[in-house]
């Protein structure tokens, strides 16, 4: 009501500045607004009478109610007030013309816009709050009357309360779970970070050791070579001993010490070339090569060592060898018995 009266006053002031058409338009619109907000029919007729020549079709629209629902009416009223406002803005723009450059205007524009936005949001929020208050007041009043509708309202509000408390409870639970999840994620991240650090350290160390590693590797190889050498020597001596035992047809079964020694002679991996060929497949090419060469060397050395004695060296598998000697010995024993 106050808004329309204000606009009314404004329009009377601006009457002189406008063209006749536009001002009559204004007149009509403000009449419409006035009609809506206050029910003074006499005033309306008077107004309609004065602006008749221009608005014949529109006036009919104004006095005749086309739409039925109040919501539509309110909506149309909003539309009209919006359009009035736009036109008032146009008029104001005409009135307040000042010359300034475009760049100046561009600079000032965002400030004005943000100010406008701020005020609009404030207004909107306040309207919302007001509506909420009004609604609650109305509901409160209704509940006080205690009739059937109030009972229905009470039931609904109780249900709402129940649902709200349920919602709160669920929200608390979900918040707790979310916190737990966040906690676990934090821990996991921490673990990851620590792992990364450790890996980085390891890489650093493995890289750093490189100059020393050469020396270590050389030392290791030397040691391994030594080991191989001694191993071969051991094997060679074992072979020699075995050869001696066989050739001299020593009775190793009865003497416990000799028997132990003879039994342990079985445990070395190679004796000759054929055995090297049958060596286990996981041995590398090098290993087999080594064994072959070692076997060759051993047999050669055996031959050398035994050249002095007139013994024969058996070039068969150790197991077979032992079986043969045992059988031989048994036969000799039985022969003697």
């Amino acid at each position, binding site marked *: 009501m106050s808004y329309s009266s204000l606009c009314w006053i404004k329009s009377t002031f601006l009457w002189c500045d406008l063209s006749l058409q536009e001002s009559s338009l204004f007149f009509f619109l403000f009449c419409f607004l006035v009609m809506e907000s206050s029910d003074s029919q006499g005033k309306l007729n008077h107004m309609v009478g004065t602006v008749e020549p221009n608005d014949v079709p529109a006036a009919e629209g104004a006095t005749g109610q086309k739409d039925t629902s109040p919501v539509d009416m309110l909506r149309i009223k909003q539309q009209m007030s919006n359009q009035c406002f736009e036109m008032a803005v*146009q008029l104001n723009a005409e009135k307040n013309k000042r010359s300034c450059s475009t760049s100046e205007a561009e600079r000032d524009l965002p400030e004005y816009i943000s100010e406008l936005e701020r005020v609009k949001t404030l207004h909107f929020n306040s309207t919302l709050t007001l509506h909420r208050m009004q609604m609650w007041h109305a509901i409160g009043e209704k509940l006080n009357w205690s009739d059937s509708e109030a009972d229905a309202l009470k039931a609904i509000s109780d249900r709402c309360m129940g649902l709200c408390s349920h919602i709160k409870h669920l929200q608390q639970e979900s918040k707790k779970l979310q916190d737990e999840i966040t906690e676990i994620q934090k821990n996991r991240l921490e673990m990851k970070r620590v792992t990364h650090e450790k890996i980085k350290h390891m890489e650093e160390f493995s890289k750093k050791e490189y100059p020393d590693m050469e020396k270590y590797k050389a030392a290791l190889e030397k040691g391994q070579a030594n080991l191989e050498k001694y191993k071969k020597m051991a094997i060679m001596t074992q072979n020699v001993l075995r050869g001696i035992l066989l050739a001299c047809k020593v009775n190793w079964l009865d003497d416990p010490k000799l028997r132990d020694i003879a039994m342990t002679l079985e445990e070395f991996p190679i004796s000759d070339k054929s055995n090297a060929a049958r060596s286990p497949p996981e041995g590398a090419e090098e290993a087999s090569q080594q064994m072959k060469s070692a076997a060759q060397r051993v047999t050669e050395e055996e031959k050398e060592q035994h050249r002095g004695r007139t013994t024969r060296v058996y070039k068969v598998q150790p197991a077979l060898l032992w079986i043969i000697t045992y059988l031989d010995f048994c036969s000799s024993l039985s022969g003697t018995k």
Partner: protein
Amino acid sequence: MSLLKPFSKLPGLNTANILLVESEEQFQQSLADALVEETSVTVNVRLAKSLPLPMENDESRPRIDLVVFIINLTSELSFQSAEASLKYLDPGYFLGKVCFMVTNARNASSPAERLDAVRKLASSLHCPLLFAEDQTPDGVASATERLLTILKVAAGLVPIATALYVSNLTRCTLPLDIDLPSFD
């Protein structure tokens, strides 16, 4: 005077009037059909090839709330005709009641300079620039939706926003690699 004026006629109750200006007159049709299907408001669509509009219709024409210039980027004539028509619009329209709609922007045969020229035009006039795809019904539907949102504001049907206020939010800016504001 052949200028189209924004406030020289009475606005209709619960109606919105839109004028589609296109020199080729093909996208207009499908857009118009889609626009008219809006149920909450009565949308009157008027079609034109270019401005100025013929004087004979001046009396029966309702107040135009939104003028949309449809420019096909593959033809130079379309752009030039739109530019020429701008002269016949009252400056009051450029405070939020004019919109530019561009079709075939993705077409390989449309030169990039034309799009830049359209952008410059739209940003100098502080008008929104919409891109539309006119070949598929989906494209027409989405273009209609966006036009309707702007139209509703221009016709005063949205309680809080006026066309002038919204034009500050939707105006085309010359991109220093920024996207155009899309009005949703």
